[in-house]
């Protein structure tokens, strides 16, 4: 018996900040022995075992007669902590060595290293968060830009859960009415007239569609946007790339491991992460000499959310390259650009945006056009409920399909028991999002995605 419970009786510890970066590292300890254990290696003005919840204490960590570091220790007492258990957070200087020693000293105090996601799992087990919220923790951890953090936070705050839950309530109401009617078949009660049923279903479909539409936005803020730069040699691809990186004044990092053939850079603009792939003028169709490069360029294009197709104002529209491009990607993902407009006043080249990578003219419009291509024309606020998780998106889509089915059934005069099948299925799909319908797969999925320390 105790074997299933043991795990939660354990006290666990792990580094909670990314390893090897930052000026400060935070080590998190949680479980019944956390305060006592840390106290035994802590030397400060206050004994931690007597400290109140939510207090911070300055002191030293001593281990094996050696001072490890000066630290700040935060004390949280059950149930008012992240995990719902007694816990401690130790902030140390961000040295790999200090962190290792500290954790080692804790492990000797009957504390074990946490498994990936274990802190969050405990929070979930202790009723500190629901499933959608636990899932959002993964997203918070993995978020690279401000907007994606906000999106994840808003899920953590339960906006999506609340919305989905209210839709589910509406559905349950309608389906129970229909089912109730089956029970009173003899007595000709009509609890919910059929046109009302359609009205209700439409209302729910409408709300689901609104949520579905936030997905491209949600996905964009979560995953970022892949942009491929395509054009003949010397149209100004590298110039544009450099200009954009400079303009955005954001993370500029060359990702190690990419060859010169396809350069990948990242920058963030209004909280959206853009990943730029410069195909460096490589042809997209097979060519013996450049085989490897061709391969990579094609990949960059295929995976792109937006393709910037550059043309030189002097040389005109590169028809042949465009043709090759169209075979790799849908046309609506391509932005046709004319570059070097500083050189000539007039042109009749077909294009969406005109720029000069040299003077910066038109770059703002280019940014706008890129954002629009990635997100779609609607404008969203991250402050409403946003769907940014594929699992949620699919569940919503399934729910919608079932509702459309149900509507068809009503229209074709099917009786209540048929309509109820699809309403129930829709309800179950919605329930999966917020954990009202739990299946093992969902749980496994969620807790497997964590890294240690969360």
């Amino acid at each position: 018996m105790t074997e299933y419970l043991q795990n939660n009786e354990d006290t666990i510890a792990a580094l909670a900040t990314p390893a090897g970066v930052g000026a400060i590292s935070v080590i998190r300890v949680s479980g019944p022995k956390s305060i006592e254990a840390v106290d035994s290696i802590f030397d400060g003005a206050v004994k931690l075992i007597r400290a109140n919840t939510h207090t911070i204490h300055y002191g030293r960590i001593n281990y094996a007669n050696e001072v490890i570091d000066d630290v700040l220790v935060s004390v949280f007492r059950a149930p008012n902590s992240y995990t719902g258990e007694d816990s401690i957070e130790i902030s140390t200087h961000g040295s790999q060595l200090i962190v290792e020693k500290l954790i080692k000293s804790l492990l000797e105090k009957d504390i074990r290293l946490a498994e990936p996601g274990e802190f969050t799992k405990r929070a979930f087990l202790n009723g500190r968060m629901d499933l959608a919220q636990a899932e959002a923790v993964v997203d918070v951890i993995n978020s690279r830009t401000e907007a994606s953090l906000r999106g994840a936070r808003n899920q953590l705050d339960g906006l999506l859960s609340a919305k989905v839950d209210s839709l589910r309530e509406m559905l349950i109401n309608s389906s129970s009415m229909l089912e109730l009617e089956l029970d009173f078949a003899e007595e000709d009660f009509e609890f919910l007239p059929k046109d009302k049923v359609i009205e209700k279903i439409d209302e729910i479909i409408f709300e689901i569609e609104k949520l579905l539409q936030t997905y491209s936005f949600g996905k964009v803020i979560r995953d970022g946007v892949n942009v491929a730069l395509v054009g003949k040699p010397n149209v100004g691809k590298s110039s544009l790339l450099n200009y954009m990186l400079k303009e955005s004044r954001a993370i500029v990092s060359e990702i190690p491991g990419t060859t010169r053939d396809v350069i990948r850079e990242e920058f963030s603009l209004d909280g959206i992460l853009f990943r730029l792939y410069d195909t460096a003028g490589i042809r997209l169709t097979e060519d013996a000499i450049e085989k490897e490069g061709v391969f990579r360029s094609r990949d960059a294009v295929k995976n792109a959310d937006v393709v910037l197709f550059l043309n030189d104002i002097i040389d005109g529209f590169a028809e042949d390259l465009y043709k090759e491009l169209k075979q790799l990607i849908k046309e609506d993902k391509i932005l046709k650009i004319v570059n070097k407009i500083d050189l000539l006043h007039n042109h009749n080249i077909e294009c969406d945006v005109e720029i000069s990578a040299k003077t910066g003219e038109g770059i703002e419009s280019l940014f706008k056009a890129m954002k629009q291509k990635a997100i779609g024309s609607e404008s969203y606020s991250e402050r409403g409920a946003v769907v940014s998780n594929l699992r949620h998106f699919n569940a919503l889509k399934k729910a919608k399909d079932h509702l459309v089915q149900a509507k068809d059934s009503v229209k074709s005069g099917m009786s209540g028991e048929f309509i109820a099948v699809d309403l129930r299925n829709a309800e179950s799909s919605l329930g999966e999002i917020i954990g009202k319908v739990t299946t093992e797969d969902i749980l496994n999925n969620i807790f497997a995605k964590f890294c240690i320390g969360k």
Partner: protein
Amino acid sequence: MHFDLIVVGGGHAGIEASHAAAKMGVSVGIVTMDKTAFGRMSCNPAIGGSAKGHLVHEIDALGGVMGQIADRSGIQFRVLNKSKGPAVWAGRSQSDKKLYSVEAAKIISSTENITIVEDSVIEAIEEDRKIVGIRTLKGNEISCKALIVCSGTFLNGLMHTGLKSTRGGRFGEQPAVGLTESLIKMGFESGRLKTGTPPRLKLDTINYDILEEQPGDENPQPFSRRTDKTKFPFLPQISCWLTKTDGTVHQILEKGFDRSPMFRGLINGVGPRYCPSIEDKIVRFSDKPNHQIFLEPEGLDSDLIYVNGFSTSLPEEIQREAIAKIPGLENAEMVRPGYAIEYDYFPSYQIDLSLETKLIKGIYFAGQINGTSGYEEAAGQGLVAGINAALKILGRKEEFVLKRSDAYIGVLIDDLVGKTINEPYRMFTSLAEHRLLLRQDNADRRLYEFGHRYGLISDDEFKEMKEREVLITKSKDLFEEIKFKPDEINNLLESKATNLIDNAEPVSKLTKRPELNLRDLLQELDHEKYPLVKSLLANEKALEQVEIELKYEGYIQRQQDLIKKMEKLEEVKIPESFNFLKLKTISNESKEKLHKVRPRSIGQASRISGVSPSDISILLVYLKN
């Protein structure tokens, strides 16, 4: 005296329990207070109806006897909900109340291995938490290996009309005293429930001229697959009559509300599902100006009319006054007022899905004692308890448990074990989430397997079903393949006023059109070329199955998808020794519930009322660790 199995009670539960166990080869003593009252219909003289008809078909497919008794004593047969889909078609019969009892007694006394004991059980005896015997009012002690208690409404029964109350188990019968107390001594918890019945009127004092007649179906269908169709119906068929209440009637009834014991109990937070008393209907559906009333003769030579839809326990004078205002009943003589009965039941978290009590090995509860109401509900439980008790006595290490996706009976018992019941539980279509698959027409396909395994369904019946199964599968496959060309079928389509086709379409697709039926389509095929079609046309039952499965294929498929999803949770088993009280992280209320019910799978746990989905997620995570 000794019997392998003692069954307490000769009601609907007791009959099925004794019959099934005896057929399985154990010696059965059925102890009942009045041996002329086997299967007496305490309330309405009818069997079946929405969802209840399904139970009867399932009982029949498992080898039970209720369907046959109803067929033999039936004086009107109807299929309800014909305007809806086949999943909710439900058979309902009116029985001659006296004959129902006679037929039930015939079956019991002609079944080998059953001994009838006319007596009242006043005590159950246990040793080491195992049942060993009983003591009776007449002073006999009978030993046994298992005991099934089917005491109906008799345990400390108290009948109410208005604020007047009389001791009794049913009109004209004594209550059973002593057994409850003996069970409580063993550690069981008991509670009180109430149920009501309408007044009875004198047959020839009703003005039928102004009432709408409701005859039975022109082509009556029996419940039982074993009933000889050539002789059916066995009795002359009668009609019922319809009338309804109105505002004046409601006003009169309302005057008595403060003196309604039934109503007082019901008004506190009881859901709308309960088969309501008239006073309850007036309150709950207050915007409905009328309520339907069915006047049902209690038998061929009975002079009583059962006032269906008018169940009440209001004071007698109020009942009389209200009835006189109902069209057709102006001069009706009330022979007996409606009354409510209050009795002991044992909250059903104390039983397992096998209906064995968790507390004492070998004691089973079935029927009204578990908090249900209705003959069919009682019979279904009796059958399950009888089979399980016999399995145990015979030393067969299996349990007979039906899943929610197997049968309405499975839903019924799963609900009983998991849900907290504070009003009598009755079977409803809405309770069975897998209802499209749980049809009357496929009860044999769903359940013969079990019935046959326990020796309650004969080899011949089983073989016939198996062969039919093959025919069904092959036909469905074939109809995906065979295509009609436009010129082969457009004539028929035109005559049925449905769209013509331009390209060849498979039979399966055309069958889905509401205007078309499979038989007509098959007539257009070349039977020499397809011998299978010929066999199918000759097998009415198989043809019906193929047609239903093709017509509603999409819905059935989607229902199955949902079942599969849910079934995964049924497969996550919880060890018997799991200590729910040790779960630190869930609310005390859920913990208590889980501890009481001791679910065996996550699926079952998830249906316990008061256990939240997050509790279930937590349980899942624990079980995984």
